[in-house]
């Protein structure tokens, strides 16, 4: 019994030394995964995920504090990309955080706008231009359609309109004559 405890004890003490030493010797910092997650998020910066912007959400996912199904603008394809990156199962979007909507942009009714600058402060990507007390407009190419400018407006002059589809942005539809249901990749 003594030999047993001693033999194993010494063996593991040696191992302990080895591991303890290597823990210090081979310490690594930094976490590139955040960047990779962030790159997959749609950057709408709408905060629907419950975090102030996409990057904080990315950090939360990396830290294991947030689930991957909280970003409505990213939709199912976004969740799938995340699932693939992180090697977990995709799951349906958490409806608590909203539902995916078609792409929209903000339009300011130029007649009603009083130039209060509140919307400018709300816009996460500085897509609204205009000085104080002047009429404001939205730079449509830069607007991410995040809705954040709508509530602050005191005169309700901002409306979100769907992005119009034209010949350039038109996409061929998924063939429907195929009788089988559409399989979203890799749910199995």
């Amino acid at each position, binding site marked *: 019994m003594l030999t047993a405890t001693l033999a194993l004890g010494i063996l593991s003490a040696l191992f302990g030394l080895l591991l*303890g030493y290597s823990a210090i010797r081979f310490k690594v910092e930094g976490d590139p995964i955040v960047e990779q997650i962030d790159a997959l998020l749609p950057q709408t910066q709408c905060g629907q995920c419950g975090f102030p912007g996409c990057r904080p959400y990315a950090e939360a996912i990396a830290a294991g504090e947030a689930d991957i199904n909280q970003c409505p603008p990213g939709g199912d394809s976004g969740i799938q990309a995340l699932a693939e990156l992180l090697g977990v199962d995709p799951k349906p979007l958490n409806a608590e955080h909203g539902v995916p909507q078609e792409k929209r942009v903000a339009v300011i009714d130029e007649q009603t706008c009083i130039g209060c600058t509140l919307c400018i402060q709300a816009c996460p990507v500085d897509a609204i231009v205009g000085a104080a007390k002047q009429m404001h407009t939205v730079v449509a190419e830069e607007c991410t359609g995040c809705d954040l400018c709508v509530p602050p407006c005191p005169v309700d002059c901002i409306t979100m309109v769907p992005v119009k589809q034209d010949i350039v942005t038109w996409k061929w539809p998924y063939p429907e004559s195929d009788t089988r249901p559409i399989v979203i990749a890799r749910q199995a």
Partner: protein
Amino acid sequence: MTYRPVVISAVFLFLFAVIGSGLVAFTHDNTAEQIAENQRRALLRSLNELIPKDQYDNDVYADILYVHDSELLGTDDAVPVYRARKGGWPVAVVLAPVAPDGYNGNIRLLVAIRLDGTLAGVRVLAHRETPGLGDNIEADRSDWIRGFTGKSLNNPKQDHWKVKRDGGAFDQFTGATITPRAVVKAVKNTLLYYRANGDKLFEQHPQENKQS
């Protein structure tokens, strides 16, 4: 760089190893005998099926001898021979030969031979024959293997130690001739071995050529 954590981890692992192995060692010490006893009893149970308990009075498990004969016993390894005696007189030997040409490889047997060269019984210890075809050699599945009891090299005649399909005296199974053929051949070989070496088997004392 401080090495305190290194030492702490080492100590930690050490402690757990000591406690763990201590407990295990303690259990081991308390169960070792029981385990050895179990092993003994397990073998004895098989042996007793072949040689009834009342026919011998020695400690068969300990009265053991190891022999070699790759030709007749089917394996290069040492084959254990258990010896049953009554009042010091030899009664029977139990060998554990191998039938090497089963359908799926080795079939390990236990062959009990009385002093006069008749079979006290044959059992299969381990085999990998096809379930449903070849496994009828198991005593649990069919009586075929019990058919050896009482047979000897004279009964049937030595050249009838074959399956019926090959012109012998032993049944084969439907669709499976190889397995019974292999077993019959191995049993016959064991008997041949006994005929050649039977007298020697009781001579040596167990301690003399114990082998592991």
